[in-house]
């Protein structure tokens, strides 16, 4: 417990302190003023939020579809579940190296596949064009975490009592009706938790960006984590980096609060219904 506090709570507080210090150790708000008035913070915030929202949205939808399939009975279900763990278990940094190869313009297979299949008119450039680099990050992130989302959602699906479906069958409900009236409402708590996990993870993404695009081209894929890292440990702008880190921490607290409120009000709706 003591180690834990020294190694995680203390640095958090120290970051706050550093963000308030100027170059000679005096206390000042200059760092925050700098950070807030410059365009960089807002741009990276925008990129980070955009990345987190888009990738989480894709992951939830595809993950849910996959979870529904995994919830069926079929031969080889266990094997498929095992296969699903593989993208999750591979280090993001390592996989990013793999993606870097797969997405290469001239000899990477993926752009050529798109071209050969007639999906794009020419071989697309993935990592060197700003928009495409952003899309590359999303592809890589979605690929890696869809299976993870699917497994979490599957656990939620398996908690829905079978009797509900049987009762619905007797009442003559169709499968779409069953999905909307039983599955979806009962899955809301699981969905919220999975959403929270994924969103916060995507929000703090570092390794994928660092290895795959390095925040570039330009600063077009610079997420908050990468920006803070670069500021504090490469450019040694400690005050500025710490101020950005504090802003990021505030974002996270904000997200956590929103989720808390959401869960509370959801709970109330349930009680009202029951």
């Amino acid at each position, binding site marked *: *417990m003591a180690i*834990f506090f*020294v*190694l995680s709570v*203390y*640095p*958090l507080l*120290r*970051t706050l302190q*550093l963000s308030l210090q100027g170059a000679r150790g005096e206390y000042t708000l200059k760092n925050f003023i700098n950070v807030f008035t410059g365009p960089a913070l807002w741009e990276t915030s925008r990129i980070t939020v955009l990345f987190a929202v888009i990738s989480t949205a894709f992951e939830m939808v595809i993950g849910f579809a*996959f979870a529904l*399939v995994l919830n069926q009975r*079929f031969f080889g279900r*266990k094997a*498929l579940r095992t*296969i*699903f*763990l*593989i*993208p999750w*278990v*591979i*280090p993001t*940094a*390592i*996989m*990013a*190296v*793999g993606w*870097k*190869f*797969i997405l290469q313009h*001239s*000899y990477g*297979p*993926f752009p050529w596949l798109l071209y050969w299949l007639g999906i794009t008119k020419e*071989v697309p450039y993935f990592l060197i064009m700003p928009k495409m680099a952003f899309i590359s990050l999303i592809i890589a992130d979605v*690929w890696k975490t869809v*299976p993870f989302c699917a*497994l*979490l959602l599957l*656990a939620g699906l398996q908690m829905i009592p079978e009797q509900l479906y049987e009762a619905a069958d007797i009442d003559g409900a169709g499968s779409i009706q069953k999905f909307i009236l039983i599955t979806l409402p009962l899955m809301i708590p*699981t969905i919220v938790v*999975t959403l929270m*996990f994924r969103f916060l993870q995507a929000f*703090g993404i*570092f*390794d994928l960006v*660092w290895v795959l695009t390095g925040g570039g081209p330009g600063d077009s894929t610079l997420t*908050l*984590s990468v920006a*803070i*890292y670069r500021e*504090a440990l490469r450019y040694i702008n400690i005050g500025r*980096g*710490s101020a950005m*880190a504090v802003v990021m*921490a505030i974002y*996270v607290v904000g997200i*956590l609060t929103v989720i808390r409120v959401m869960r509370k009000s959801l709970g109330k709706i349930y009680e009202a219904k029951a």
Partner: protein
Amino acid sequence: MISKKTVKKIGLYITVVVMAVYCLWPFYFLLNASLQPTKMAYQSPPVIYPKAFTLSNYINVFRSIPLSRYLLNSVVVSSFGTLLALFAGSLCAFAISKLIKRNKGEVMLDLLIIVGFFPMVVALFPLYKLMRSLNLLNNYLGLILPYAAFNLPLTVWVMTTHFDSLPSELYDAAIVDGASVFKIFNKIMLPLSAPALATVGILNFISCWNEFMLALTFMTNKYMYTVTVGLSLISGRFTFQFPWGEIIAGTLIVTVPLVIVVLIAQEKIISGLTAGALKG
């Protein structure tokens, strides 16, 4: 006529195959590229089917970068980080579950979990300075300690739920018999917790093995790199003749142990993942 049921079944299996392909297609291309002679990895358009076969990439990668050293580093920091987290975490969880007052324990647990949600980068620089002043940069301890700390929330969480599920009569009976708290922990609680410990242990190990940011920051000597850092930094070192074949061979070598872990322990991993995530 084919019955409706058969059509449904065929549809289901097609979806299943699509899902498996979804998870595995990048590996096909990586495997393919790693098994071909280096110069073929530079053909444009790329050769996406196995045209020639060689294992030379797998041998050469050990020569061009100290991959075996990286593997050793990763094994050392991940195993000790995991063990330390398990040790500290189960003690912590035991205290929260059995020793201190309920509401106090819950506050501690909440605090742990909330801290666990913060992105690591927020605390990175002070941690870096701390490690520098303790002379722990480029030292295994410099990664083991923070890894243990960052895995503590999950460990404490899972272990607390586990200890809560053990009947407190066990604990009370042992007290009556005059056993000390540590004896109870050692002789009664730990043996009953082996499965839970194994589950968290596997998850911790994987998260240490996959960690990137701290390893990148604290290990600056290239012989101290862990596999994740070692392999991903190669990209920066070559400007011409980027040895893709070898790098990809390296990434696959690093992946193999993890896939084996998954194959052996998939039930445990899934139960641990869902327990850790869904009860929160």
